[in-house]
């Protein structure tokens, strides 16, 4: 439970960082001053989300023991029908033992109310749709790159909410760090020198 609260807090901090950085970017007069405001969005926010992932997933090696509960499954006796998953409700992915879990959390400890998880997932989906719309509708190139960076963050949060921490890390590092830097540098290069 504490893990959930802490990771939620970290995610909120990440969102606030990106929002503040976006505000700074919108206010600053020229591209290089704006570039300074990209850093918190590109670095601090990913660090917060990374920390949230580790708080949720845990750093210890003992998670592997969870697999002992199910026991080894011999290949020969394994029926293909067993592998077919039960149809799930929207948020029941949180209950299925689909991925490694921190050892400190028992069967009931990780349970998040289904409605809360549903809400979180819907909010993440709506946020990504809104972010994508903002990216497409932004006319200024520099602002578009920054909107893209924020969109990358939203996408990372979406992946995290849908329990794909590996993809979250990839999206964070590429969508929020690598892509905006390359795009901003390219824009700075092709921009005419302001005399």
């Amino acid at each position, binding site marked *: 439970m504490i893990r959930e609260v802490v990771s939620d807090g970290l995610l909120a901090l990440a969102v606030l960082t990106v929002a503040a950085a976006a505000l700074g970017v919108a206010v600053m007069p020229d591209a290089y001053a704006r570039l300074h405001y990209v850093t918190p969005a590109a670095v601090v926010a990913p660090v917060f989300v990374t920390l949230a992932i580790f708080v949720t997933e845990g750093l210890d090696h003992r998670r592997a023991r969870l697999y002992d509960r199910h026991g080894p499954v011999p290949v020969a006796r394994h029926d293909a029908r067993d592998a077919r998953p039960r149809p799930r409700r929207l948020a029941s992915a949180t209950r299925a033992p689909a991925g*490694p879990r921190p050892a400190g959390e028992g069967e009931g400890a990780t349970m998040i109310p289904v409605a809360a998880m549903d809400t979180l997932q819907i909010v993440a989906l709506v946020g990504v749709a809104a972010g994508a719309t903002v990216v497409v509708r932004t006319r200024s190139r520099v602002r578009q790159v920054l909107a893209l960076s924020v969109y990358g963050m939203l996408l990372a949060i979406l992946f995290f909410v849908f329990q794909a921490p590996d993809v979250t890390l990839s999206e964070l590092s590429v969508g929020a760090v690598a892509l905006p830097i390359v795009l901003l540098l390219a824009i700075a290069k092709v921009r005419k020198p302001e005399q």
Partner: protein
Amino acid sequence: MTPGQRRWFFLAAAAGLVACYLWAFAGLPGFGNYPGPYGQEVLRQAVRQTHATGVVSAVNFEYRGFDTVGEEFILFAAAAGLSVVLRRLRRERETEPAGEAGGEAGSGTVPAASSAMRVPALLMVGPTALIGWWLASHAQTNPSGGFQGGVILASAFILIYLSGEFLAFRRLSPVVLLDAVEAVGAGGFVAIGLAALAMNLPYLDNYLPPGQVPGAVSSSGTIALISFFVGIEVAAAFVLIAGEFLEQTLLKRRSA
């Protein structure tokens, strides 16, 4: 084609697209309902077979390791292509990076970094590099991997630039060294696979002992090693890419 015809053409095409899209959508499995047996099988077997608790890494670097080789060389080829396209041409000479030499009015397109910018950026360099290494070396135990770790490691170098130290960035990441590290990373991955062939095993077969405890850092055999090589390859590639772009932006190149 008149605008009217074009509009009708668009409307017909859009209607067809919407129809096909809805038809395809109706045939999708329910939300969260994964119908393929492969994923379930991997979840059952992966930890036992590879002793890697990061099952995604086990898939990336073991079961589908060959795909990852291809992906890695996409990045390798991209970085190489960028270096070729942005190379210094003959009859081009470089001038000093504007702004760094110390505020020549008029020529300075890059303002010097403020202290408020410089101090946090420099403070973040160490932790960022640590997180990068940690991610790259813990693919077998945690949701992480060489790719993510490599990009974050590269962003530690980019932080050095953001703190206003372009020249330090360049000193710390000479292109020759980056090329060598990138080649070692890409080559190391391939070499791990070829070593398996030399032992009469399938390419990229996990021939190292998987370790006693699933989920220990030293477990999972070649998965950890491949993740490490991917990490340094990706880090070098991204620093190289960022460095090339920075040079293009900061160093004014004029044909003499």
